[in-house]
């Protein structure tokens, strides 16, 4: 059956939709769009589509992906147009292309994600200060943090191997960080964890407020 990869954005207030609710919202949009959806077999059939790495609630996604199966082929532009007519505000399909039926599942192939983090500082720093702070972090051989999972169990782990790149720029009392971090089933590093290390161990004077976080891309291996 024809298979498509769909690139979409999740931003504005839609970033507060949870992963599970996003799946439901997308399914309803696909139904309204009248796409010839392929359904799973079984007693309770569901349209066959799957999302890439879940986006945490509150984080914007600039280039998110999902794979969709249809029973009959449709032009890519038509899929994009029909979906965009039916998506609620904050969700938008930006690209659709067809992929081989036997292409590996999205989730299995994703390994890295890039993020942009906008922070407000409590006092201004120079670009030189920021460079030193970032270099300081990158020079560490390991970064052990504790992470609390849903059921409040704490575990410690080394996030350094999952930080592939980190850079930043200063504008007055605002800093924008660009990060490339591990994502996927094996190891995931969260951008807030990196910010926390920069603040607590290297003295980046971040304000006590939620930074604006966008996931700017998702990448396979390599």
């Amino acid at each position: 059956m024809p298979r498509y990869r769909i690139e979409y954005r999740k931003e504005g207030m839609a970033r507060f939709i949870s992963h599970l609710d996003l799946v439901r919202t997308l399914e309803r949009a696909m139904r309204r769009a009248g796409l010839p959806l392929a359904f799973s077999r079984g007693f309770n059939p569901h349209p066959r589509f799957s999302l890439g790495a879940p986006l945490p609630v509150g984080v914007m996604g600039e280039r998110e992906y999902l794979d969709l199966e249809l029973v009959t082929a449709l032009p890519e532009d038509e899929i994009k147009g029909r979906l965009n007519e039916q998506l609620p505000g904050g969700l938008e399909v930006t690209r659709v292309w067809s992929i081989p039926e036997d292409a590996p599942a999205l989730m299995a192939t994703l390994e890295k994600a890039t993020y942009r983090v906008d922070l407000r500082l409590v006092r201004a720093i120079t670009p030189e200060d920021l460079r030193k702070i970032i270099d300081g972090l990158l020079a560490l051989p390991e970064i052990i943090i504790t992470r609390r999972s849903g059921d409040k169990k704490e575990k410690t782990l080394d996030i350094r191997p999952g930080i592939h790149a980190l850079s930043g720029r200063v504008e007055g009392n605002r800093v924008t960080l660009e990060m490339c971090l591990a994502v996927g089933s094996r190891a995931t590093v969260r951008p807030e964890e990196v910010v926390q290390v920069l603040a607590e161990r290297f003295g980046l004077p971040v304000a006590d407020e939620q930074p604006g976080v966008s996931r700017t891309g998702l990448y396979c291996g390599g």
Partner: protein
Amino acid sequence: MFELEQVLHRVQKPARYVGGEWNVVRKDWDKTAVRVAFAFPDVYEVGMSHLGLQILYHVVNSREDALLERTFAPWVDMEGEMRRRGLPLFTLESHRPVKDFDILAFTLQYEMTFTNILNMLDLAGIPLRSEQRGPGHPLVIAGGPCAFNPEPLADFIDLFVIGEGEEVIHELLDLYLELGGHRLDRQRFLHRAAAIAGVYVPSLYRVEYHADGTISAIEPVASGVPARVVKRVVRNFDRAPFPVKPLVPSLGVVHDRGMLEVQRGCTRGCRFCQAGVIYRPVREKSPATLLQQADEIIRHTGYDEISLVSLSTADYSRIQEMVRSLLDRLEGMGVSVSLPSLRVDAFSVALAREVQRVRRASLTFAPEAGTQRLRDVINKGVTEENLMEAVSAAFAAGWTAIKLYFMIGLPTEREEDLHGIAGLARQVLARGKEMGVPGNRLRVTVSASSFVPKSHTPFQWEPQVEMEELRRRQRTLRGLLKGKGLVFHWHEVEASFLEAVLARGDRRLGRVLEEAWRLGCRFDGWSECFDFEKWQEAFHRAGINPARYAYRRYAYDDLLPWDHIDAGVSRKYLVLEHKRAMEGKATPDCRTGVCPGCGLCPTLEIEPELLEQVEKNASG
């Protein structure tokens, strides 16, 4: 906006507060003459499951000169963040403060939300009491089932709508505009509004009390204000406005599916049931209307399930035909049909079997009482045979678990009735075994709620059974329902007690509500939030003995706190029904053509809208 976004990062389920759902209506604020904020005093997931919200959203937003936006009770974490940052209660559509609206309209679905109403007013920055509000404050109105005894909220609500809101809301908005919109004189508006049928303005009534605290008089204090407010009912229900483009929540809600209202009202006449009285008479929609609405709902929402909602869907005249036509149309689209409640009989199980696509583990029935005697007292026209037929059909169709709903503390309940509940549960279990349901999957769950006497019912005069005794009866049942395959659930008696106090309360309870809210009572319907000790303290501070409200047996000629609110059913009939209950006599279903004489049709000059009748009238 920045403040709101910061807050959203810190709370559970932020999608509760963001809006922007599919089919949301956003109107130009400056170009819209009258702006209504519709407030559901519970969380988003509960409020968005409520059909009345969707109907009024549609009805008001269909007007060019009006807009209606939604607000819900913020959960405790959100309330904390809002108070910490001074963020006022806002609507989901425009994120504007509720205080900026012309009208704030609460829906009263259950008594245990009353403290949330006070909390929402306070979060909005609106004075709690009507008398403290003036120009620049929204009018605070309320409607819904609990408006049938509005008195506990009389101090806080400027105006109540009694009965169905689809039509009267237009009359209120028209009057609002006629009197000058947001520049209008509040008192003049309320006085004029009080003359609209179905509108109750509590400040225009005076309540007087006897020395013993009972009510001696409830009278209008101004001319042109009716002595009794008669409920509103929508006529020609088949043509009533209905939302075929409902809001599609972007957060999993309690009832997350399309809703098709097949009929309004119920003819069964269970004597404990307030909905059975306040939604009279029964009015059915035609299959043609329903099929068209179903198609549109599915097309505009993308739901994979549509539910046929009403108080008793299996009673709809053409239910079988309706279900088949719907399945024919929708199955190809991967859309299923569901029934919200099942009547206790084999017919209903057959229906449930026809519609089920997803095999859910359990089926639920509500025999309500454990013996035939007590079921006759409450006029629940269900026999043991009906139940056994129903569960046999269910087991035969592959269901392995049965849930049974009962009430304890019903008037005249005796020990044998408790044993009857356990007996029925065991019989159902035995039938399951006989029919070969695997032992590890066979389960009978008994849920026993405690009877709460409600206004406008034949049991309105009855006391609630005292808490200690209810606890004892729960213990008895717990003992009787031990064993493999049996599960017993019960409700906190304190919550049922409070519900009874509020359900039959008068305006003096306003002080208690305010004290309770000040003590921090919120979300009293949520067991994790309900704090009975705080309520006791509130009663103490207000100098009110709650037991007098819950445990009092009224005499037929006592003046009841809600006697100036007319649900259309005559007092004479309620008395007759109460007497018949005490004699264990059943009253026929008015659908059978035998009129039990409740008095509603002549009073409201209306007739039940049953398909057969409607078609007969149409053809000649």
